[in-house]
């Protein structure tokens, strides 16, 4: 399985290591800029100035914050489970970085007579790798909450476990729909399949489900129940300080970049976009960055606009709305993908019309058979 092993010589290894290092630092820098961007956008929407002092227009504010956190005293609570307590921030950070391994940032460039793709590894099961890393992110939070030996973190981590597992199902369904539509698990193939139209258009429900589930996976407002400050002080990282807190913070924002990059790769055509023919390797990269910034801006916008929702509503929204819609959409995608092969294109149109008609008839008949609300005061069960 270790596929590339036989033909790789030392130059390939160097290029691979160089790619890993470049991606690592690119992610760090992008997180730095992302935090600055979030603060600036928030300030703009609230008619404030935002950070202004560190660097031009406050660009270096994250660096300043990082240095401050680095030199702060790290405190370990007496009741903490020490090894797990120290391990949790690291676990929270690593999967987020690993998820970048399969994301194609651009077409690639020819260096020393070989083609160097802007992607660390084009795994055969790329989309599953992304799901796997997403499912590992919960560990950092769970272990942090448990090992702090304190009540608020524990509550936060129990919440986050339930929340992340629930929304992972919805996210998985959205990804399943995309991979059915694209016919591949490989990231490069999925990008290649979007050369005519971006997946976001035919797969719009999946896109919406993915964005909402991504909000819950990254624990961002309005779904930041694991760290809701009005209820849980700071949730799972209440007891963390200094560099360990910085790691959680970093992991959270790396996670946001990951979710946005995956949204771009799977739904918004990845690095595709019209570009002039000179310096051909640069434009896809710029397109990718521009799209990621757009998705991140959307997330920031949502955060600043919507209030935090109640925990039970969050769960029931995930289970009773997002997952059923996702299932139906997977079914519909399956029909669209398979039926033309079996019955030809004309039959597909007929089938679609029948389905639409059935839904219309059902929606017309529904008020007749629906159970009536007896009084306004009664709670619906």
């Amino acid at each position, binding site marked *: 399985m270790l596929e590339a092993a036989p033909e790789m010589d030392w130059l390939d290894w160097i290029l691979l290591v160089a790619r890993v290092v470049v991606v690592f630092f690119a992610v760090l820098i992008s997180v730095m800029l992302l935090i600055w961007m979030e603060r600036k956008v928030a300030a703009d929407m609230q008619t404030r100035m935002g950070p202004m002092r560190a660097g031009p227009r406050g660009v270096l504010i994250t660096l300043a914050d990082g240095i401050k956190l680095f030199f702060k005293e790290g405190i370990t609570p007496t009741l903490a489970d020490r090894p797990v307590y120290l391990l949790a921030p690291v676990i929270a950070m690593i999967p987020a970085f690993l998820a970048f391994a399969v994301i194609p940032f651009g077409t690639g460039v020819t260096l020393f007579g070989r083609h160097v793709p802007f992607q660390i590894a084009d795994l055969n099961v790329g989309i*599953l790798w992304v799901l796997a890393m997403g499912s590992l992110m919960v560990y950092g939070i769970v272990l942090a909450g448990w090992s702090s030996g304190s009540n608020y973190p524990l509550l936060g981590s129990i919440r986050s476990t339930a929340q992340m597992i629930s929304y992972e199902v919805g996210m998985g369904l959205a990804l399943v729909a995309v991979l059915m539509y694209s016919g591949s698990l490989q990231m490069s193939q999925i990008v290649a399949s979007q050369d005519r139209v971006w997946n976001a258009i035919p797969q719009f429900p999946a896109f919406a489900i993915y964005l909402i589930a991504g909000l819950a996976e990254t624990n961002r407002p309005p779904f930041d129940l694991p760290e809701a400050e009005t209820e849980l002080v700071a949730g799972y990282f209440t007891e963390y300080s200094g560099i360990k807190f910085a790691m959680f913070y970093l992991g959270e924002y790396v996670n946001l970049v990951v979710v946005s990059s995956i949204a771009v790769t799977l739904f918004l055509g990845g690095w595709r976009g019209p570009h002039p023919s000179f310096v051909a390797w640069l434009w896809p990269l710029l397109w990718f960055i521009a799209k990621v910034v757009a998705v991140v801006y959307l997330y920031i916008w949502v955060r600043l606009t919507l209030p935090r929702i109640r925990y039970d509503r969050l769960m029931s929204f995930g289970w009773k709305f997002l997952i059923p819609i996702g299932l139906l959409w997977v079914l519909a995608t399956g029909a669209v993908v398979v039926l033309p092969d079996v019955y030809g294109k004309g039959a597909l149109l007929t089938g679609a019309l029948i389905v639409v008609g059935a839904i219309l008839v059902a929606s017309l008949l529904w008020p007749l058979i629906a159970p009536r609300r007896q009084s306004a005061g009664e709670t619906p069960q």
Partner: protein
Amino acid sequence: MAPDQIVFWVFAPVSVGSAVAMLFQRNAIHAALFLIVNFFTLAVFYLVLGAPFLFAVQIIVYAGAIMVLFLFVIMLLGVDREESLVERLRGQRPLAIVLGLGLAAEIFVTARASLGLARGPANFDETVNVGGNAQALSHVLFRDYFLPFEVTSILLIVAAIAAMVLAQRRERTTVEAAGEAEV
């Protein structure tokens, strides 16, 4: 040594070590963590044994869902206090030694017998995983094993409903009735 052998010799001790460590942890959460390490090493084995799809499934299902469920239940019930590890099984040790020797002998015989069967270093990826492991797997899964696949899906639904019914709070209805009476 071929790369897959290196991987095996690096990860097999980690795997066995974490499994044994899991048994001798007094704290349930620590035991669960060691089991997660074990599942990761097994996922790596799947990768080496030509099953990248199972590698991903192992991480998503076991490490990502099942073990999180375990952690969740341990934290929810608060049963992570220390547990004594004194053995209570009578006559366990001699019996274990006898049976263990029997198992070792059986594996030894199997190993001897299988030496003649060695298939040589033919590449699994070229013979079976043609067009990708996921594709090869799906061909077999959805053609030859379609009925078991559907039955498994029914099993999962039944299990989900059963888990909900079992874990539901019975006294909740009475509490709610009391609440409504107050209103």
